[in-house]
């Protein structure tokens, strides 16, 4: 394997490892759940992404053919990380009704959907959006 390829792979693994550590340090260090939520969703996806790209390049280097199925995991993680974060935040707000006064006003006649029912379930728009978020 060429020297520069080894260098790139090693660099990717080290950078990925650093991001994985940073994400978990943030999970321990930050003071409350909403700020802790930022650390893993961001830092860890890039950490795993670095390892996956390194694996892709490595098998290209030793076998000579492109191994692309790592793209699947990367794409899957990038699609699911925001959904997980949204769900955890929503469940947290649901479990802690005392947080309600801290939230800013919606700027609309209705409150936030975790605490307030949609205006009219037959009206369509809001109900559809909520169904989209939950399913």
């Amino acid at each position, binding site marked *: 394997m060429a020297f520069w390829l080894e260098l790139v792979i090693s660099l990717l*693994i080290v950078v990925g490892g650093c991001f994985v550590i940073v994400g978990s340090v943030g999970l321990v260090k930050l003071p409350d759940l909403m700020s802790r939520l930022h650390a893993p969703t961001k830092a860890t996806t890039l950490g795993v992404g670095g390892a996956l790209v390194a694996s892709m390049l490595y098998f290209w280097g030793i076998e000579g053919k492109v191994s692309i199925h790592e793209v699947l995991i990367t794409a899957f993680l990038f699609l699911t990380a925001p959904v997980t974060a949204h769900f955890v935040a929503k469940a947290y707000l649901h479990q802690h009704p005392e947080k309600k006064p801290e939230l800013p006003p919606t700027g609309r006649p209705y409150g936030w959907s975790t605490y307030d029912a949609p205006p009219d379930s037959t009206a369509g728009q809001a109900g559809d959006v909520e169904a989209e978020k939950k399913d």
Partner: protein
Amino acid sequence: MIGYALTFGFFAVCLALMLNLWRLVQGPTLMDRVLAVDTMMINAIALIILYGIQQQTTLYFEAALLLAMFGFISTVAYCRFVLRGDVIE
């Protein structure tokens, strides 16, 4: 050189898993624990990928993919349970 990088990678991921475990045990709220388990799943995927590089085999790829799916589904199912009191309505 890749060997040294891999050693560092294993060390980093294992340290990260220990920190997540601390948050899982400590976590003041329920959602902290869910978040810790979700992060542990993602870190375990990184560990499996690095192990695959070390063993020079793509056999473990399917395990990583399955773990990614189970991690996501279990987190979403748990959050949905908290939100609705039911997983499938």
